[in-house]
């Protein structure tokens, strides 16, 4: 099973990963604010993640680690 880990405090909430996810599992958590003052990304359903790493490929800040 695939697992995503986010370095949440480095996220700038740009949302490029959200659009890249083929399963539409990622979302920008509007109710949260990280150290940088951005709303960070989070995964809605970890179990459905297929570990394609498209999100990590699009992430400009290298905050996503993908394990499979």
């Amino acid at each position, binding site marked *: 099973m695939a697992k995503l880990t986010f370095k949440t405090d480095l996220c700038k909430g*740009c949302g490029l990963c959200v659009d890249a996810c083929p399963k539409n599992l990622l979302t920008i958590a509007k109710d949260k604010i990280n150290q940088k003052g951005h709303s960070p990304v989070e995964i809605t359903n970890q179990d459905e993640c297929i570990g394609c790493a498209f999100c990590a490929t699009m992430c400009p800040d290298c905050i996503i680690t993908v394990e499979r």
Partner: protein
Amino acid sequence: MIVFDKPKALTDAPLHYCPGCTHGIIHRLVAEAIDELGIEGKTIGVAPVGCSVMAYDYFSCDMVEAAHGRAPAVATGIKRSDPSNIVFTYQGDGDLASIGTAETVHAATRNENITVIFVNNAIYGMTGGQMAPTSLPGQVTQTSPYGRDTKLCGFPVRVCEMLSELEGPEYLERVAVNNVKNIKKAKAAIKKAFENQINGKGFSLVEVVSTCPTNWGMTPKDALKWVDDNMIPYYPLGVYKDRSGKEEK
């Protein structure tokens, strides 16, 4: 098993780029190429002036900061003084295609054995969104509020096409980083540019069509679409020169 993580050739320093700026992706692709070729210890990068001026903080190889536009000249000096070094420059369009045109053209025509990563986002990003030599006709910028008027300001410089007319350069390719497929192609191009240098083949330039959501005045998502709709039609992707392979385009 970890299938994707930050490459070792990038430091842990948080990138200062705006949210959604594709500089971060291109930094990572360069770092991945350095990691995969195992050349971190002998690589020397040359940072430009522009948004990526602090690239020396982000790459864990040795870095030098060059004066505006002079990165290919500095890289020439480093490479010639010790050819066992792997030398790359990382430059934006205001740096490479404007003030540094002479250095770029002459490094290319001498077939200097260096790798040039050219980030083209059609605007001066760091100084606040002024018109660049690569700004598209009709593009609205701070200094062209009614759109770039080609009668007044001329036409954009297509660097790959221009350099491909020279005898010198070994390898010229234009890639984009606006979707996963293009990022994979960009990575292959950047890796090939480094391999060319390792094999002593000569001047390799990879032009990466990039975004500037802040100064284009768009969301990061719209900026990626703008690349597809406007940038790529004007700056067609592909290999412009590959002397060791077969020539295309």
